[in-house]
């Protein structure tokens, strides 16, 4: 039973981790909490749903297309809502982010209506039994896809030239520009990659919980943000860790305390961890700006 819950927690947590990565990457580069990120996730779920149901596109292709379009939406939001405010106060940008979030969820309500849509199961409903837990085909898909995306992201950020330039930009923008790095381009790439991951999470939650609604981005968006802060905002491994821990805590809380409090558990965990580690689990204590 415990191992089963743990497993469920990790699966749920891996979707939070994907969402958290988008928050943390954007924050790392421009110190903005991109509140519209939850709506990118919602958008990804809808694109996946429509491609699979209306256009009858194979699931994995739909998944990739949803990531690509999510990426495009994220870049557009940055271009229209944040870039013009680059030199304004951080509060203006934050308000613009909240505005973008409301705008997108309301636009989705307008277009799609408030009825929940049900995501068809793209796979046969097969369940695998192991001695310690059972796991469905969908769950395996969610888990593996998240894992692959996280590994790919880590490779990208650690090994590629653009990934290194992203890290350099996060550490010191002016000096990065003195290296010949075009900061605007790095910001665009950051939004593109973060949003692709967010949209991927949307599709996965779509097939996992099977419902898609225009307001579905709110809670997971908030939890993804909590996960990013838990891990240490701006820190990529931290976002992964924070997401997984949050998923586990939520599932355990629902199983052993009360299922009514599953959301409360996320925020309680945030408060407790921040009391002891204000910078998050893997965050750096103070800003070292030379």
């Amino acid at each position, binding site marked *: 039973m415990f191992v089963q819950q743990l497993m469920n927690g990790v699966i749920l947590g891996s979707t939070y981790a994907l969402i958290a990565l988008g928050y943390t990457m954007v924050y790392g580069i421009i110190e903005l909490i991109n509140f519209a990120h939850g709506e990118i996730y919602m958008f990804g779920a809808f694109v996946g749903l429509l491609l699979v149901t209306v256009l009858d596109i194979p699931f994995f292709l739909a998944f990739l297309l949803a990531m690509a379009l999510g990426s495009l939406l994220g870049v557009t939001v940055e271009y229209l809502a944040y870039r013009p405010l680059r030199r304004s106060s951080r509060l203006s940008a934050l308000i613009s982010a909240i505005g973008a979030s409301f705008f997108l969820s309301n636009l989705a309500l307008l277009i799609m209506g408030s009825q929940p849509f049900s995501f068809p199961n793209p796979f046969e409903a097969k369940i695998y039994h192991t001695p310690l837990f059972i796991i469905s085909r969908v769950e395996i898909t969610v888990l593996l896809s998240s894992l692959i995306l996280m590994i790919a992201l880590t490779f990208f950020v650690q090994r590629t030239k653009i990934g290194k330039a992203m890290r350099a930009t996060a550490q010191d923008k002016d000096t990065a*520009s003195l*290296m*010949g790095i075009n900061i605007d381009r790095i910001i665009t790439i950051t939004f593109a990659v973060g949003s692709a991951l967010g949209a991927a999470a949307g599709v996965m939650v779509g097939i996992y919980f099977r419902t898609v609604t225009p307001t579905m981005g709110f809670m997971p968006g908030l939890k993804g943000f909590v996960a990013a802060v838990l891990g240490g905002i701006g820190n990529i491994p931290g976002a992964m860790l924070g997401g997984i821990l949050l998923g586990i805590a939520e599932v355990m809380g629902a199983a052993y305390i009360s299922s009514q409090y599953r959301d409360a558990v996320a925020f309680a965990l945030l408060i407790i961890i921040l009391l002891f580690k204000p910078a998050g689990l893997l965050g750096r204590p103070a800003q070292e700006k030379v």
Partner: protein
Amino acid sequence: MLKVEGVSTFYGNIQALRQIQIKVKPGEIVTLIGANGVGKTTTLKTISGLIRASEGRVLFNGQDITAEPPHKIVEMGISQVPEGRCVFPRLSLRENLEMGAFIRQDKETIAQDVEQVFETFPQLKGRDRQLAGTLSGGEQQMLAMGRALMSKPKLLLLDEPSMGLAPMIVVEIFKIIEEINRQGTTILLVEQNAQLALKTAHRGYVMETGQVVLQGATDTLLNNDQVRRAYLGEG
């Protein structure tokens, strides 16, 4: 090679530079000296595009670069070692050097040039994977200089390379500055250590409160009464 023509720069309403005129010819080491807060760093930042001039022009090899963004200016051949070195603390030594070569595509020659940096700064050798933030101040200065050289600049801007370093290390760094110049890189050197800067450079400019107040060959400046009193602690 570089011409700063009547450049004025503001921070909000505060004027930091007043109609600065500076010229650097190919092959020279030119130094810009002056007390803390007179606008030396602002001058370099205006040249490299980090701050916009509100008046005047910056010309590089005859081309007007006043309105170009920093990354374009690097591509044209100007590289800057910022004040306080500004290595990327959580990138490894090698990654810092790779970032210096960001504008280049030639993988093999980049690898060779990384080795070349290790030749020039033997203290950095064998420490590729160490995080730059864990280096000592002198080593960070060396890394920052090596990183700036990785873009193969025609003009190197150095902002107070001696800042906060032990005298022995400063001497070592200045020897390397001369060596870099001998190998064909033109240098604009900002310093508060006027003595050493004037001994190293060919020509110099003296700044006071946002203006150039004196200029000339460094031999002449070294013998100038005003310079000796104000910057060399004599008289």
